[in-house]
């Protein structure tokens, strides 16, 4: 498939798939966390569709990246905001694109510095080949076929859409 999908329709489909998961968990312990920036936009919509009682958390993984010494400090870093303690929570981690898996590793490291969650699930809007770590999503909006020189970016926050960038 190619990233021409209607993003909003994909999010509705993801919410449908997540409903069963959420219903199997104690609702008051389900904490959704979006990863800045695109993951937060997707999470905001999912959070609303699923009508979760706990407020949405946001994570900026800039301080946990494994390439800090290579690419340096991210000047656009945003504060992470977890509204409740993560201890014992069933976390649904949301990101826009799952590619190498390194962002998710960084996000999980950060979450564990806040406490010990009961479980973590991963929901992503788009998934593409190229995993460098043993990390797989639980819920996927779309599987994207992209060449290695193609990069996909989610544009937002008002109307969400894909943008494919080709690097030479």
């Amino acid at each position, binding site marked *: 498939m190619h990233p021409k999908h209607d993003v909003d329709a994909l999010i509705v489909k993801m919410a449908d798939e997540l409903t069963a998961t959420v219903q199997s968990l104690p609702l008051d312990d389900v904490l959704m966390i979006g990863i800045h920036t695109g993951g937060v936009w997707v999470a905001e919509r999912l959070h609303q569709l699923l009508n979760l009682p706990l407020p949405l958390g946001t994570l900026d993984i800039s301080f946990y990246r494994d390439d800090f010494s290579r690419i340096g400090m991210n000047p656009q*870093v945003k504060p992470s905001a977890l509204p409740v303690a993560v201890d014992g929570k069933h976390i649904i981690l949301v990101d826009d694109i799952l590619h190498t898996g390194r962002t998710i590793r960084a996000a999980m490291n950060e979450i564990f510095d806040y406490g010990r969650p009961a479980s973590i699930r991963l929901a992503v809007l788009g998934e593409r080949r190229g995993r460098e770590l043993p990390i797989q999503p639980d819920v996927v909006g779309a599987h994207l076929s992209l060449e290695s020189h193609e990069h996909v970016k989610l544009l937002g926050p008002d109307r969400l859409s894909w943008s494919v960038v080709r690097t030479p």
Partner: protein
Amino acid sequence: MIAPNIQLDPQGRLRHLLTIEGLKRQMLIEILDAAESFTTVAGQAVKKVPLLRGKAIVNLFFESSTRTLTTFELAAKRLSADVLKVNVGTSATNKGESLLDMLRNLEAMHCDMFVVRHAESGAAHFIASKVAPHISVINAGDGRHAHPTQALLDIFTIRRHKKEFAPLTVAIVGDIMHSRVARSQIHALTTLGVSELRVVAPKTLIPSHASSLGVHVYHDLTEGIRDADVVITLRLQKERMESAQLPSEHEYFRQYGLTPEKLRAAKPDAIVMHPGPINRGVEMSSEVADGPQSVILEQVTNGIAVRMAVMSMVLGRAPEGTV
């Protein structure tokens, strides 16, 4: 005076932090924004991020300090850096050569950053001009010259309470003459474009060139803080003072000590700041220091996030040619 330019690398990024002078507004805002993100680390169960893992930071304090040294150390540790403190006596004679030898030794141990405090103005610049290319220097206070991280944590604290700098009237009260903090604050606040910046002190504690720095000079406390949004009081630097400059602490408090009554001249929501350590009953009364308008302990807390921001920006520059 001292050339501030050596603190930027060829791409205009912060390599050392030696002085606020010469830093662009955009750079100050970038530091404040990064510091804002680091404030959340203190709320984590594990108060640490792995950003500077494997980096070695040396605190070189040639002059005594509690707050600054502790918060620099804590900031470095919360970034997962290894921190060492070199005990250097203030009485070290023959400074020039032995200092350089010490630097060479620390470089040989593969250290990445020196945090320097020294009683002589220009000490951090001197060290920065001598270190190996991969080493960064942060000025933690040099003589009467500059204390850039203190000024940054002060403007950070102001921004958290007042949002915008443009409409603010800020009064700096006290020993402007001997204060490196005041100098750095003046550079920061003028760069950020506050509406009005005042200095308030007896004639003997204000340098003659003060008005050339773009500040309004007042000698009366009530007039000086009238309708101010921010009142910054400074410590009387008795150790840097000649005896004739001050009548007595009692007399100073009578004229310039901040009390709840005098503070009424400022705006009702004015915040009161002090870089510490406070001389209670000299620069301000305990009622003010511990009162609802005081943000003095917030300044201490904010100092950690601000120092984390500066350290990670300086050590987190991408290698040249990769951006």
